């Protein structure tokens, strides 16, 4: 049927869009997901503040008795506190401290949690049983309470706050990664890896682990937000980070009493910074974890 000439023909296509560039896809995604975009913008502002902000504002500890309790003005954007310290300068310095603490906590908890989670999920058996019981126990404490008692038992330093809060989130990451590893190890590629000559450890770490990390990675953004909240909450109770250090929770705590006497700005602005910063992480995190579907 058919001669050779008829078989060769040029297929015509309806308009075929060009392959989008990576940037193009990114922009299209941002356009379709406005909440994610708000998160990215907020986070960029806060990261900018944290990285370069401190070079542009004054000393967060400089007191000025003459200017105590000045309300917000062009000179003191966020006003001053009872020692006449500039609240804007303090808030910007606090951004650096709070964000870096939050990020370090999330990273430490994620790294430890996912390594334990993969081992536990992939190998199963006794080890898994023990790990699960331990996370059960740790998850029986609200994260805030667990962090609180660890900091209270250790002496108060920033490092100990990081350790305490990270410890409170490790079980969360263990659970996440373990659950994914349980799914991944049943997939056929894991069996195929064994047949290709991979031993148990190579199969676990070279094949299963990289494919099990996604839930932990995307949840790390949410945990960063929670960590900032926890650290600030502890500081508000004078646990962990102590006055006069410029830290959002410390500042809200110092300003709490001023509210009764009418100086609302001493606690309003640092508290607002906490909420906006955590929102940035949550807008992004909700999107990545698929809560927006």
């Amino acid at each position, binding site marked *: 049927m058919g001669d050779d000439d008829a078989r060769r023909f040029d297929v015509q296509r309806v308009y075929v869009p060009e392959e989008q560039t990576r940037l193009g896809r990114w922009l299209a995604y941002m356009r379709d997901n406005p909440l994610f975009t708000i998160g990215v913008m907020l986070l960029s502002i806060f990261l900018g503040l944290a990285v370069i902000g401190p070079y542009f504002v004054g000393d967060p500890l400089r007191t000025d008795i003459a200017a105590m309790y000045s309300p917000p003005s062009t000179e003191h954007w966020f006003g001053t506190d009872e020692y006449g310290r500039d609240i804007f300068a303090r808030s910007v310095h606090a951004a650096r401290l709070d964000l870096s603490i939050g990020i370090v906590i999330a990273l430490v908890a994620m790294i430890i949690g996912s390594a334990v989670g993969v081992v536990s999920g992939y190998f199963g058996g006794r080890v898994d049983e023990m790990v699960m019981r331990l996370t059960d126990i740790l998850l029986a404490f609200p994260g805030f309470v667990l962090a609180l008692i660890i900091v209270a038992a250790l002496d108060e330093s920033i490092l100990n706050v990081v350790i305490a809060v990270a410890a409170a989130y490790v079980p969360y990451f263990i659970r996440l990664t373990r659950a994914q590893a349980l799914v991944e190890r049943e997939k056929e590629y894991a069996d*195929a890896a064994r047949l290709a000559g991979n031993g148990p450890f190579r199969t676990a770490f070279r094949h299963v682990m990289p494919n099990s990390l996604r839930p932990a990675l995307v949840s790390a953004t949410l945990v960063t937000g929670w960590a900032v909240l926890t650290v600030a909450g502890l500081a508000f109770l004078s646990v962990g980070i102590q006055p006069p250090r410029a830290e959002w929770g410390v500042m809200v705590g110092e300003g709490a009493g001023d509210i009764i006497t009418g100086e609302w700005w001493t606690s309003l602005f640092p508290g607002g910074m906490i909420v906006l910063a955590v929102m940035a992480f949550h807008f992004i995190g909700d999107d990545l974890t698929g809560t927006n579907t």
Partner: protein
Amino acid sequence: MSLLEVRELHKSFGRGADEIPAVRGVDLELAPGETLGLVGESGCGKTTLGRMIVGLSAPTSGQILFGGEDVAGRLHEPRYRSRVQMVFQHPQSSLNPRFRVSTTLSEPARLLASESAGASSSESIRETLRLVGLGEEYLSRRSGQLSGGQQQRVAIARALMSAPDLIVLDEPTSSLDQSIRSRIISLLKDIQKSNSVSYLFISHDLSTVRRIAHRVAVMYLGRIVEISETNQLFDDPKHPYTKALLSAVPTLDPKKDTERIILEGETPNPTQLPTGCSFQDRCSLVHEACRTQSPSLANLGSSRQVECFAVQ
């Protein structure tokens, strides 16, 4: 001498009252260069049997002889590992999504390299890829960039990398479209012609099995009930289950409608098997002996064995 011999193989999952017998005493032989089709419905134990033969699952009891040597439980040892490989049912999940094709293929080449594969591995990777009908441009792709048929070709190439004597194919075509399915079948046949590798072809799709297998074994509830040369089995099935199974398969031939056998009920729960023949409750030829004694595979002619009192 046969390449593979399986004797009295058993496998159970769970313990105590929840024990589920998946494979209940299977005997098999497979010659070099031969394709044995293993057919049966879901839960009949065919996949479990295949996984035991490649060593992904350890038998509860029984022997797996490879070249006369019992390898049950030792298949992970390097000297056996390269000789038996497997191709899986879902081409997409059987490839590591993070790996490029080159990595997928170089892994067995590197980890299972034997003296015979003396040539440089990158050369043998290209050659194997050509053998399964893919060009070099595929080396740098990830599995997400391949179609289902191409993924399955890569999976076949991966199984071939260690120059195995036997490949267990576990439903390799059941998740593919008809036209691609046919191409994979003829690809497998061509590979067998050039490499003289043996296949254990597991499938519930009888028409596909008919096209590739030299002999076919029919499984029901963990036992082989009939094993025979392919054409003989399809033309003249003996076991009542085989007959029903064959007649249940829709075919393109419209005249076949005449003597359809429709079985009553469904495969019973393997935890509550009756005494005697496990097919008794659905069988039209059932008689007294079937309720009390268990039949075993008996020769019926030179190239066929059947496990049924009614036809022995």
